[in-house]
């Protein structure tokens, strides 16, 4: 009997054959036959979807004769974590990566009817080559469908830290972003081969960049949110290599998102944009390489395997090397001189790109320096937050200053009416909040003051720009102005305001956080700034697949009126033989109360870590707002296309 698992495996092999054919189309001089490429890409998508479905089915039905299920699942696990368990491991997450690769290819195949046939075929051929590389990687080194001769009675379970809703959603969103950039890459390489990179190319490419960027933004935010509530240390960004691996493509894609706009509107920055598209996806691959190879120490690494690392390194060299050679050959033909004035949106976007690329390089150096130093001198070092605070933050501060200036300048030159007024308002606001912060906040650092000044500049600058264009003081015509302005400007506003909201959250937590670590007995009262925790009791409870030690803490105001009950706990998972810490968090818009139960017993007392974290949820709210901005820009674009 052939089981569904074998069919899934077979589907993956056929998909690889189809991708191979798809990659070869231009060589077979079938470039004009876009229809063949479309059919191949769409069939490949169907087969990979089926294959992934077969794997998920094996996880849901707890088929422990499949090695992957036996290693990473357990019959007692809640359904959602059985499903998410299918991508909570190396082999399955690689298959998810391929699912998204063919999904983007498939959507492009189906939405590109109006594009030139040759260009579509070339793009799908490049996409097919990338797909083939990853299918080969999966089938040759990381087959998710391997069977066990002697299946166990039950699985080994999924790492309890990963049994979590945020983490169930984090990889799919992150991959939508990472892998979404593959299409920008394919479009760029196709444009290079075709020798045709013009305003139309910019118009075709920009939606894919916006979609990938928005997904990547949400994916990174989900990962950060997960680390915040699940790891139990109260931090939201650790400058861990794996975090950096997602930040680098994000920074490059942010630059790309802005430069491809210049291509679309002005037909400028063409060769630079092509280079950025190649680099953005390359950085996604570098990120994959970091996570999969175990080359860099990280709390997130999957169990490492050198042969897999070598395979990805091969894909990486191929995917970066060949396009860059192609770029060196064809790129110079794309160069052209600009006719824009110095004070123009064109210039602002060039500066934006310079800053973002330098920021990407800073993260890249900080991530790989330990590896380089170890290879050269054998010394083992860690590059931690102090490095990034000293380098990344000042450079990004420049970007934040530019976020107000760019939008008030016009294409080619000159500024919009009353733009100067907007900048003056932003500048005065920045000075006022700096003075206020120095006067009102004791022990504030220079970096904190600078951050608050930037926040004032950005928030009031954007508000002034909205006021200038929407004229809130003349409400009668507001609805008309809203409709004529269109969605793209909202993309800019929401995206840039999202950054202001994010910054407010980061500053609130960074400047005004309070925390206490103590040993306490039930009955004790612990004071933290303007509130107190009454340690009422220790309880023992049973969860679906774990046992707990739970502390019952009553959060009160200093005069004893109740605010909430917090129940931080330690969970013991018998199936996995592991203990995890579950922080108790009371999130509010003005700040989170965050309690963690550490080790201890009835005679020694229990370790408690208590935090108050002002505005911290604004960090993820801001990231969400940025992603919404990206979606508005995307929607605005397609609506205009329908109108014209």
């Amino acid at each position, binding site marked *: 009997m052939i089981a569904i698992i074998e069919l899934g495996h077979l589907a993956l092999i056929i998909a690889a054959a189809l991708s191979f054919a798809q990659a070869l189309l231009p060589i077979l001089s079938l470039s004009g036959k876009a229809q063949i490429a479309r059919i191949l890409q769409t069939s490949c998508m169907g087969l990979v979807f089926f294959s992934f479905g077969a794997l998920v089915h094996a996880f849901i039905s707890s088929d422990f004769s499949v090695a992957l299920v036996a290693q990473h699942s357990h019959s007692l696990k809640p359904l959602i974590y059985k499903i998410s368990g299918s991508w909570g491991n190396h082999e399955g997450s690689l298959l998810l990566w391929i699912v998204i690769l063919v999904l983007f290819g498939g959507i492009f195949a189906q939405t590109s009817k109006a594009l030139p046939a040759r260009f579509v075929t070339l793009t799908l051929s490049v996409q097919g080559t990338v797909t083939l590389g990853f299918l080969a990687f999966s089938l040759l080194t990381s087959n998710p469908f391997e069977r066990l001769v002697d299946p166990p009675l039950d699985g080994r379970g999924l790492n309890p830290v990963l049994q979590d809703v945020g983490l169930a959603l984090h990889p799919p969103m992150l991959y939508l972003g990472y892998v979404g950039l593959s299409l920008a890459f394919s479009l760029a390489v196709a444009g290079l081969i075709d020798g045709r990179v013009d305003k139309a190319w910019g118009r075709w490419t920009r939606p894919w960049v916006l979609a990938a960027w928005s997904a990547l933004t949400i994916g990174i935010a989900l990962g950060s949110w997960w680390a915040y509530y699940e790891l139990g240390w109260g931090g939201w960004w650790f400058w861990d290599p794996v975090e950096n691996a997602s930040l680098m493509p994000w920074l490059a894609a942010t630059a790309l998102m802005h430069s491809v706009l210049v291509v679309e509107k002005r037909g400028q920055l063409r060769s630079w944009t092509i280079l950025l598209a190649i680099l953005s996806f390359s950085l996604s691959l570098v990120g994959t390489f970091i996570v999969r190879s175990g080359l860099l*120490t990280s709390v997130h690494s999957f169990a490492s395997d050198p042969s897999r690392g070598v395979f990805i390194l091969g894909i990486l060299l191929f995917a970066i090397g060949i396009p860059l050679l192609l770029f060196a050959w064809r790129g110079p033909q794309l160069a052209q001189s600009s006719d824009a004035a110095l004070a123009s949106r064109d210039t602002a976007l060039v500066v934006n790109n310079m800053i973002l690329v330098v920021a990407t390089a800073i993260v890249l150096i900080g991530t790989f320096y330990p590896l380089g130093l170890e290879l050269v001198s054998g010394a083992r070092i860690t590059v931690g937050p102090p490095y990034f605070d000293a380098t990344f933050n000042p450079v990004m501060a420049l970007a934040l200053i530019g976020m107000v200036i760019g939008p008030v300048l016009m294409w080619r030159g000159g500024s919009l009416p009353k733009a100067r007024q907007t900048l003056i308002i932003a500048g005065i606001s920045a000075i006022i909040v700096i003075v206020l912060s120095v006067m009102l906040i004791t022990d504030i650092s220079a970096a904190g003051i600078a951050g608050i000044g930037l926040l004032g500049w950005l928030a009031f600058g954007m508000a002034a720009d909205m006021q200038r264009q929407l004229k809130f003081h003349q409400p009668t015509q507001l609805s008309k102005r809203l409709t004529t302005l269109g969605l793209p400007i909202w993309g800019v506003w929401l995206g840039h305001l999202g950054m202001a909201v994010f910054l407010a959250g980061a500053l609130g937590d960074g400047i005004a956080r309070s925390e206490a670590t103590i040993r306490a007995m039930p009955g004790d009262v612990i004071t933290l700034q303007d509130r107190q925790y009454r340690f009422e009791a220790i309880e023992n409870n049973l969860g679906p697949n774990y046992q707990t030690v739970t502390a019952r803490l009553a959060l009160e105001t200093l005069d004893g009126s109740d605010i909430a009950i917090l129940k931080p706990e330690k969970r013991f998972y018998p199936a996995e033989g592991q203990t995890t810490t579950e922080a108790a968090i009371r999130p509010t818009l003005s700040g989170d109360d965050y309690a963690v139960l550490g080790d201890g017993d009835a005679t020694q007392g229990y370790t408690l870590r208590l935090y108050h974290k002002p505005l911290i949820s604004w960090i993820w709210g801001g990231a969400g707002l940025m992603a919404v901005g990206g979606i508005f820009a995307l929607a605005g674009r397609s609506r205009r296309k329908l109108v014209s």
Partner: protein
Amino acid sequence: MNAKSQRLMFVAAGAVLLGIAAWLVSTALRDNIVFFFTPSEIDAQHYEAKRLRVGGLVAAESLNIDGLIANFIITDDTAQIAVRYEGALPDLFREGQGVVAEGRFDQKRFIADTVLAKHDETYMPREIADKLKEQGVWQGADSK
């Protein structure tokens, strides 16, 4: 301003930005990196008061918890370092398990402000795993 001088301006601005960034990076890499050692590699006096990471196994029966203060010994089976840490220990901290402590030497004792334990059953900080394999005291399964 003509196109040529404008391009020159961009190149100049880019060079200035790169120069500043390079200066920031080189300064930060000189001042803000933390070296990693195992107990047998380290000469405590030489690194007195410098920020470091030390890693190895938590020696059996060396853990002594008093209130918030944990005293324990990190070993690589050749040498030992006595560590004092104040704060909450990670879930996976156990005697006989891999651990990395970050902090400073004070006399011969290592005063840690951060303690990292291996993150799950198949994970151990690579620095420790390499060292332990070199010294033949590796206990975990070979990396899969």
